[in-house]
């Protein structure tokens, strides 16, 4: 009863509306050209020719044009072609390949150490109560410290050479892997574990066929974070006492006001990030094809 009167109270001006008000109806019909006449399909293709990359490319084109018109000061943002040219020049000098391999080696070693530790401890803590007690407290506390704030301590402990750089990257990669893997294993559907127990599944098979596959989506989330944080660690690590690497390239370029080379370094970081993302996407496509949400192409 009270609900029937509520609208009248809220909108007193229309309270006297006639009770025999016409009932509002909505009618749905097939939209014109849903099947896609050739014209509509063409129009759709033309409006977003590159999908999600349409906007970035449009910005690049705009950037290039405004640079060439002289509207963008070169000291703030050199034209995209100038940035590419800087890359080509550095490559020809042989510097870019040195910087690139140095950085990639640091990330590679750092990731290998960080992921190994993160995955091992994550699985142990996920599977065993004692493992949880052993690792979880420490990790949760350390996790609250920002990655970059650890750098000074690491320098004191491990010096300013490669070790600190690699360990910082490992640290960035290992923590998110541990946290996500632990949560993923503990988050495996309890009903499935119960089913397995009822079916007489023994411990090893429970781990390999139920718990670990069930934790795979969480593992991939962890991997995504690990890759991102390892690049973050790389950037931070290469600001200290580096004589090669992408971070070094950027620092040096800044010193000599080579803004095009600064941009080049940023572009390389972006490409590294995109590649990492693409790598995880491919893994997801292969490993998670069983997921109901995954639409096979």
């Amino acid at each position, binding site marked *: 009863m009270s609900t029937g009167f509520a609208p009248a109270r809220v909108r007193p001006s229309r309270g006297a509306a006639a009770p025999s008000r016409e009932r509002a109806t909505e009618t749905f019909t097939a939209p014109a050209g849903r099947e896609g006449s050739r014209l509509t399909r063409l129009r759709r293709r033309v409006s977003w020719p590159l999908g999600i990359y349409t906007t970035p490319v449009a910005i690049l084109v705009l950037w290039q044009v405004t640079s060439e018109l002289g509207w963008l000061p070169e000291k703030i943002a050199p034209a995209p072609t100038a940035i590419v040219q800087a890359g080509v020049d550095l490559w020809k000098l042989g510097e870019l390949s040195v910087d690139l391999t140095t950085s990639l080696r640091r990330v590679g070693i750092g990731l290998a150490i960080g992921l190994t530790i993160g995955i091992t401890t994550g699985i142990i803590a996920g599977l065993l109560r004692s493992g949880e007690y052993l690792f979880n407290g420490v990790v949760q506390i350390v996790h609250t410290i920002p990655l970059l704030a650890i750098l000074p301590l690491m320098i004191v402990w491990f010096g300013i050479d490669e070790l600190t750089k690699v360990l910082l990257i490992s640290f960035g990669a290992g923590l998110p892997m541990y946290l996500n893997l632990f949560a993923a294993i503990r988050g495996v559907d309890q*009903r*499935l574990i*119960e*089913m*397995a*127990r*009822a*079916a*007489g*599944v*023994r411990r090893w*098979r429970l781990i390999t*066929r*139920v718990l670990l*596959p*069930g934790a*795979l989506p969480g593992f991939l989330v962890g991997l995504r974070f690990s890759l991102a944080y390892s690049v973050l660690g790389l950037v931070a690590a290469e600001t200290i006492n580096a004589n090669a690497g992408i971070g070094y390239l950027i620092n040096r370029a800044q010193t000599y006001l080579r803004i095009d080379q600064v941009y080049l370094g940023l572009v390389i970081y972006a490409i590294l990030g995109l590649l990492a993302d693409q790598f995880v996407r491919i893994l997801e496509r292969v490993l998670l*094809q*069983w*997921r*109901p949400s995954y639409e096979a192409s």
Partner: protein
Amino acid sequence: MSTTTTTSVDVRNVGRRFGDRVVLDDLSLTIGESEFVVLLGPSGCGKSTLLRLLGGLDLPDAGTVSVPKARAIVFQNDRLLPWQRVLRNVTIGLYEDGADERALAVLDEVGLKDRARAWPKTLSGGEAQRVSLARALVADPDLVLLDEPFAALDAITRLRMHDLVRDLRHRHNAAMLLVTHDVDEAIALADRILVMSDGRIGSTYDVRLDDDERDVGTAREDLRASLLGDLGLAAVH
């Protein structure tokens, strides 16, 4: 029908409480070898708790529960591992050689042999529940516990599943305990119907009807009326 001499399940004076709520109260029950018992009752009467005790998923507060070691549970939801194909879902509990052949044979019995390589996400509700039936039967259990396995299926699929279960029963010769709140399902399948209320078994009906009499007839209607009466529902004719 069959008069049973050996017992498969023996439950004596079992009690189970959760906090202050007494769910099972001094309950006793025996099930004979290859007997099909249906446990009927409204939701929250303790029938699922009893089934979990029989399955070894829970332990009683009082009394004893003795069940065959070789037993299987069919759950209300199919509980298939989404990351394993149908065949591997069926063989999950098998450790002997020739597991795949046995699984394929059972999948054939439930009519899903050609779906052995499929992912669970591509199965319909009825198909998924048939796979979970196959998973339960593949190890040739002496006791199969079915926890409202068809409750989530549509009416037509449910009738097909009843036929399938009747058929499987004759092949596998296991004792079965089905928990349900569906009176028609109970009549369709049971050798014996137990109506549960307040944590005890209220009344027992031996169902001595052949397959046709279970579908239609006065005997069926009389049984249905008494069951509904026991459940506290006036029979509607």
